[in-house]
């Protein structure tokens, strides 16, 4: 396939993915908007007003970057894992397997589709947050790069999960028992300065902490970790997970007999 044909194949996958999650918007776009609004009202307004400042900002301003990032992470992941696993389940993945689309284009297409949903939700949550607080962006390139890379990373993670999953339970195990706890413990709602030394050390092993703080640095200018270390870590994870995903695809793991 020449470059133009490869691009056509790539954009076909991406557009199909976008069409899928917009077609079922009550399942994909509405719930995170409702959930995040509740977070803003309950944690930001009602409880936040009694907490006072965190990291030099009022509590609402402090949690907004974390909540945006949480929405981006969970939706980027969920889109790819549910879409690709459904294709496996319905066997429509065979449409791709019999075609000449190279594995890296399949991965890139699904990851971009996941990013489209994750970043779309990120925009929706950001707009909603403006009803509760004012957002002043400290470093726009940092915001954009961090959110794009984080979204890509979790979309790749969702792809690997979908390849390895053999039943619907496997699709929800990682988001429920790994992603959500790591996100909650990744400094979305608090600064790790509040934790005792030991738990601060443990928190530093949580990759999501780096992403949330990198993004928070871009918006507020404060971070528990060096934002460039955050970017470096995200890039390393993207490289490693993409390598694993391509290896699994080449072996036909979960998709070829």
């Amino acid at each position: 396939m020449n470059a133009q044909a490869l691009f056509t194949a790539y954009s076909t996958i991406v557009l199909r993915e976008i069409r899928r999650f917009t077609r079922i918007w009550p399942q994909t776009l509405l719930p995170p908007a409702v959930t995040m609004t509740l977070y803003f009202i309950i944690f930001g307004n009602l409880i936040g007003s009694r907490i006072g400042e965190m990291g030099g900002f009022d509590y609402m301003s402090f949690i907004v970057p974390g909540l945006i990032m949480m929405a981006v992470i969970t939706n980027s992941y969920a889109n790819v894992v549910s879409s690709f696993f459904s294709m496996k389940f319905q066997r429509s993945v065979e449409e791709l397997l019999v075609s000449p689309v190279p594995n890296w284009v399949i991965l890139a297409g699904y990851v971009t589709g996941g990013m489209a949903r994750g970043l779309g939700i990120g925009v929706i949550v950001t707009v909603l947050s403006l009803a509760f607080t004012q957002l002043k962006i400290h470093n726009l390139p940092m915001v954009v790069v961090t959110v794009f890379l984080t979204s890509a990373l979790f979309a790749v993670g969702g792809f690997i999960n979908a390849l390895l999953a053999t039943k619907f339970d496997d699709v929800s195990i990682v988001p429920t028992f790994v992603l959500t706890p790591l996100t909650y413990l990744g400094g979305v709602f608090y600064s790790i300065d509040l934790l005792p030394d030991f738990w601060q050390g443990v928190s530093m092993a949580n990759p999501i902490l780096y992403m949330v703080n990198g993004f928070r640095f871009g918006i507020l200018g404060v971070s528990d970790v060096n934002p460039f270390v955050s970017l470096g870590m995200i890039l390393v994870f993207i490289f490693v997970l993409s390598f694993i995903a391509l290896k699994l695809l080449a072996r036909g793991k979960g998709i070829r007999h």
Partner: protein
Amino acid sequence: MTNALEIEGLTKTYGSGFEALKGIDLKVTQGDFFALLGPNGAGKSTTLGIVCSLVTKSAGKVSVFGYDIDTHLSAAKMHLGVVPQEFNFNQFEKVFDIVTIQAGYYGIPLKKAAVSAEKYLKKLGLWDKRNTPARMLSGGMKRRLMIARALVHEPKLLILDEPTAGVDIELRRSMWSFLEEMNRQGTTIILTTHYLEEAEALCRNIAIIDHGRIVRNTSKRELLQQLSLETFLLDTEVSLDKTPELEGFTCRLDDEGVLEVDVHKGQALNDVFMQLGQQGIKVISMRTKANRLEELFIRMVESNAPEGESITEGRA
């Protein structure tokens, strides 16, 4: 001329240890209408699955129009269109989208894909359903949708795995004429089917696979010549109440009064009509009783079956 498909020493052992293919050699020439027949579990779908990249082979070589799937997989796939045995499209997508998306996977831009999709959806009688979600289609329509999807990129080799399973007779006949037309226009077609009547009506060459081995690979004509006996059904002008005596032939009356006559190879049918005429019996129509290929197939597969196993009992 390069063969449309060449398979050499193909083997497949599944993770469970089951040896589905035990060294298959097969050649399908360009323009052929080829049938791959065999009982359930014989290895037909595994063979085609390997050609289409849905199954990973254990050993052997496969090339499509000269392109080795190990070294030129993308080029080989460009020449292939696949109609699988089971429905494998997104049930929630619309008919038109399913076909154009497939074209997109082959690098065909949407404008061109839309033209090709319209052509095949019209040919297969699905144009009116183009905006219908696939789940709303009947079984026959779903089968035709898979054929349209397989053809949208104009492949030179079309592989159909049980294309008419569960399709009513009228639709099956119209699908046959469509496939014959495709073949006349130059598309090489390989099909597997359980309807041996289908293979007999459509195909020029036939391979029979059993227990992971090709037990026969020849032309349909040569295969049918092996039949030593054929049974003809004769409808007579007046219903017969007793079986007539025909010298040199075995005959009987079926429950509906139709005369069945067994004719051995070398015997002349004229003798039958002559003897019936002498007895004042007028024949108004005649047809063969059973599918000739089916008889041969059963004989071949049964002779290949391990001791104690019968094709009529089925296989796990």
